[in-house]
């Protein structure tokens, strides 16, 4: 397992560089112009000069190389500088966003707190709900609990968040006035009242996202449990006189987790990608909103950096999932 992990980590480097190159090519090829949102009253020559100032007149491969150097060399130095108080990166050109003319990573750091609190908590809540629901609905297949669970999770998954979000706002903000419809990203939790405000502004986005996540994960959990409940080893375990709890929660659960672990692991990077629509609906303005506005504004350095960070997380979590398979089912061997 250790050699496998090491080998995977080593191959991850060329993989990621290749991925970054493909992302760059894709963004180059995609139609669009960073000046599209500028008013039509700005004449063509001025636009040309604005493009030049952004560095768009350089050849594509030069821009890719510059970005790569900035990402793997300059930006880590900036982080080290911040931790150690050194000044290694002084005078080096960082990755600058075209929209903000500011370092991309400064904005990303600014956005991480709200994304992690809202999307992250929603994910944890979703998983916490989904696993028990999946287990119980499988164990009591076709009971009323299972039927309701199926119904709620299917509706939860098939009705998009742009609808459920607005619906919650209309009910709880407009009609009842319980929760704010607009998330305040500047709120600092310092005391009890500010904590209450933070919780009340998080309730709706977390609920919407958690429902969506839980719907998906609980379906996979249920079906995987069903597959395993009929296996011979379950009958054997019961025949040996093991308690029902042990049979279900130790033997069956462990063997059922493989597809669920995949779904959960694939979901973790999406926490960092943010929830684009939900963030828009509730004005959480996290990483998801950052990415979508950057795409709409054709802010290529921002899109490239964000998607690449995302790629790093995906590769990492897929590796983690693969290692978890080995732990859950010792028969799986990669070497």
């Amino acid at each position, binding site marked *: 397992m250790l050699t496998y992990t090491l080998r995977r980590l080593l191959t991850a480097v060329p993989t990621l560089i290749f991925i970054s190159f*493909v992302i760059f090519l894709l963004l180059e090829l995609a*139609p669009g112009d960073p000046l599209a949102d500028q008013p039509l009253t700005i004449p063509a020559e001025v636009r040309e000069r604005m493009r030049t100032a952004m560095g768009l007149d350089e050849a594509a491969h030069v821009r890719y190389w510059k970005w790569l150097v900035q990402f793997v060399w300059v930006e880590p130095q900036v982080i080290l500088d911040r931790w150690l108080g050194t000044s290694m990166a002084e005078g080096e050109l960082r990755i600058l966003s075209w929209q903000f003319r500011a370092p991309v990573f400064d904005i990303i750091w600014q956005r991480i707190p709200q994304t992690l609190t809202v999307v992250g908590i929603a994910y944890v809540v979703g998983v916490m709900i989904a696993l028990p629901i999946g287990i119980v609905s499988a164990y009591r297949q076709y009971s009323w609990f299972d039927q309701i669970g199926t119904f709620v999770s299917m509706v939860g998954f098939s*009705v*998009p968040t742009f609808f459920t979000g607005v619906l919650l706002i209309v009910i709880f903000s407009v009609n009842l006035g319980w929760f704010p419809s607009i998330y305040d990203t500047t709120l600092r939790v310092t005391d009890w009242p500010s904590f209450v405000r933070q919780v009340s502004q998080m309730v709706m986005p977390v609920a919407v996202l958690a429902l969506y996540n839980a719907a998906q994960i609980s379906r996979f959990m249920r079906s995987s449990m069903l597959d395993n409940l009929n296996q011979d080893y379950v009958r054997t375990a019961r025949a040996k006189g093991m308690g029902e709890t042990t049979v279900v929660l130790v033997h069956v659960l462990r063997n059922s987790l*493989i597809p669920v672990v995949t779904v959960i692991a694939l979901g973790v990077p999406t926490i960092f990608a943010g929830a684009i629509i939900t963030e828009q609906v509730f004005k959480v303005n996290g990483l998801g909103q950052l990415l979508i506005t950057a795409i709409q504004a054709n802010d290529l350095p921002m899109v490239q950096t964000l998607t690449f960070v995302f790629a790093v997380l995906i590769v990492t979590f*897929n590796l983690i999932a693969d290692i978890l398979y080995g732990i859950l089912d010792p028969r799986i061997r990669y070497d």
Partner: protein
Amino acid sequence: MTELAPAPAVEAALRPPRSQWRDVWDQFRSHRGALFGLLVFGSIVMFSVVGPYLWTVDPKFIAIRSRDLGMSWAHPFGTDQLGRDIFARMMAGGRVSLAVGLTAMALSILLGTLIGVTAGFFRRLDGLLMRLTDLFLALPLLPLLLVMVMLFRESLARQFGPETGIFLLIVVAIGVTSWMQTARIVRGEVLALKEREFVLAARSIGTPPRRMILRHILPNVLSPIMVSATLGIATAIITESALSFLGLGFPPDFPTWGRLLFDGVDYLQQFPERVIWPGVYISLTVLSVNFIGDGLRDALDPRIRGR
């Protein structure tokens, strides 16, 4: 059951041998949820396919003076902000949404299963295919779709006509960008299955890989595939609406359920039925497909069948 066994057993022995598919159907029939799902799904399909022949109002016809009407006999679901009949638009939208949802889901499941099984079964291909999966997971969806539309829209429209061309483009776009999760899940399951006794046994008697996959591996990864398929339909219908909202999908006056839902959200407070109908139809479709999937899975599982 055991006490009653002798008599039916004799009868069974006298009857001609039954085909496997007949068994599957019998088991499926005994699944109430599945039958119900089939019924609902069938009526939704009928609504969209046969409906327009019975309800001959043109879904694109604008009767501007009768806009924003509530439900009535003339307009069972009311009219929209341009006076178009929502009932007719739901039918027309259903054709597109169902076709896109089912085809895109099928494509995505096919790709996902193919890649997942291949990666899980053949160790040599695993690394390559999983890195490919990583790559696709990492690609930003929106620019990818923009590029696909830019490169292929005109040539496809010229080859197959504007509507079929865009249909193909959308189905391929959704299919190609949504197979990764299925692939990862299937691969994980295959990795575990591969070490199970029955697979080892099959291998020890020299079963060739193709037969091994088709007879032993695939039937055992069916349930996660079924779940992916049901969830995939919902995703495809919604993604289609996002695409047409972004101007990448069907022409703007072409109704689809996702688009009707999206357009209706602004009118949520004044005309809630405008969101409720498409929402209900999408949910019903997904729910019924889910129940059908449940029934099929049970019916195809020999351990459950016959119980």
